[in-house]
């Protein structure tokens, strides 16, 4: 279908964009457009104004400072996928990015757009939660910073006001050589995931789990941290049994049902994917710990 008419605005600075947003009624931010334009074509969304952020230079870029990777909100997913910094410092993010849509959509889709759209089966919100990322938002009223777990409020819903723009995302890095694993199940590579699991591990002496993060997507209205499984693992010696015990914590999940999968199936997927993601993380982490 064709979208309903709207006015198009193309600010060239962040301040101009913030002014526009605070003054216009029923305005929407256009980032990469890979979800928004599809929804407009269906007329699920009918904004009167679109504010295109593509020509605001300060919203793009990847930089590392004091163990934190700061990514401008309008940075394209494809540029993240091929960034050396991301590959070295955030290997889990790199692995997850390969599952974000298709090449044509990653070329255009942005990190800020994907986070703000907050689809429960999307990878970037899940990765932000897994890495305890911080989301920076701005409005004419000022700037504020939100942890990913507060930002991701609900189904397609994030904790920002209508006049606010996501300007950057900051990912704290884990220790060099940490373990990571990413597994996802979709009907077709790049389609919406039915479920997925992301794991991060840091091991200490004797293979003891010092730090762990386990995150699932596709099982609830937002991605979720499997904190009970993290508790099971922390401080214990890493072995196959421990991984199984952690993955078994998925039994407490009450996944959504939809046309693609029922709750029982999703719970099963969550368990298997968690096990595999942890298995990969353990291999990568143990290798490092033993040298």
């Amino acid at each position: 279908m064709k979208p309903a008419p709207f006015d198009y605005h193309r600010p060239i600075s962040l301040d101009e964009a913030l002014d526009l947003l605070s003054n216009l009624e029923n305005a929407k931010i256009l980032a990469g457009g890979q979800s928004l334009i599809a929804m407009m074509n269906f007329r699920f969304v009918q904004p009167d104004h679109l504010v295109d952020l593509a020509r605001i230079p300060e919203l793009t870029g990847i930089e590392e400072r004091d163990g934190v990777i700061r990514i401008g909100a309008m940075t394209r997913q494809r540029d993240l996928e091929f960034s050396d910094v991301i590959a070295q410092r955030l290997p889990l993010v790199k692995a997850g990015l390969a599952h974000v849509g298709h090449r044509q959509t990653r070329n255009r889709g942005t990190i800020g757009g994907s986070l703000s759209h907050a689809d429960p089966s999307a990878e970037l919100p899940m990765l932000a939660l897994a890495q305890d990322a911080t989301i920076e938002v701005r409005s004419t009223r000022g700037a504020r910073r939100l942890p990913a777990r507060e930002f991701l409020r609900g189904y397609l819903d994030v904790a920002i006001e209508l006049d606010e723009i996501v300007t950057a995302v900051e990912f704290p890095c884990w220790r060099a050589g940490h373990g990571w694993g990413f597994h996802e199940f979709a009907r077709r590579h790049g389609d919406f995931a039915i479920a997925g699991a992301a794991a991060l591990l840091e091991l200490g002496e004797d293979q003891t789990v010092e730090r762990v993060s386990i995150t699932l997507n596709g099982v609830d209205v937002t991605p979720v941290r499997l904190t009970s499984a993290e508790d099971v693992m922390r401080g214990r010696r890493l072995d196959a049994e421990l991984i199984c015990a952690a993955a078994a914590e998925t039994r407490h999940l009450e996944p959504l049902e939809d046309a693609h999968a029922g709750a029982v199936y999703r719970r099963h997927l969550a368990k298997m994917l968690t096990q595999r993601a942890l298995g990969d993380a353990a291999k990568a982490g143990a290798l490092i710990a033993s040298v």
Partner: protein
Amino acid sequence: MRVNGVHYEREIEPRMTLGDFLRHEIGLTGTHLGCEHGVCGACTVLIDGRTGRSCLAFAMQEDGSEITTVESLAQGGELNILQQAFQDHHALQCGFCTPGMLMTLTELLRDNQNPNETEVRETLTGNLCRCTGYAAIVEAALDAAQRLAAAREA
């Protein structure tokens, strides 16, 4: 906007997608629109050298961009190597998906001169074909990569 090296200027409504702009405003109907919501990939073109779905871009956004469409591939009435490989391998039946397939593969073969079958298949996940079952398309892509390599050596 430049399309296939030619400069075009038009007054348009903001809601016009890039795909509709190419087809209706400048008459380049090689680009096909299937689903118009980003699923089928038939509408794929190169936007500043990168593939994108022309149904998920407004023409206004691409003010000043360089767009490359399927019409640019054949030169002087001769199919290019990739197109010829498609014909030789029967990689199209109805041909609806073909422009998108060709543009996606054009980008792939530019960035990766020697892709393996998995890479080709992964790249093509963003393009649907209702007719061929993909096997012939994958064969054509792999064969085109070899022919391009041979052409480079020659």
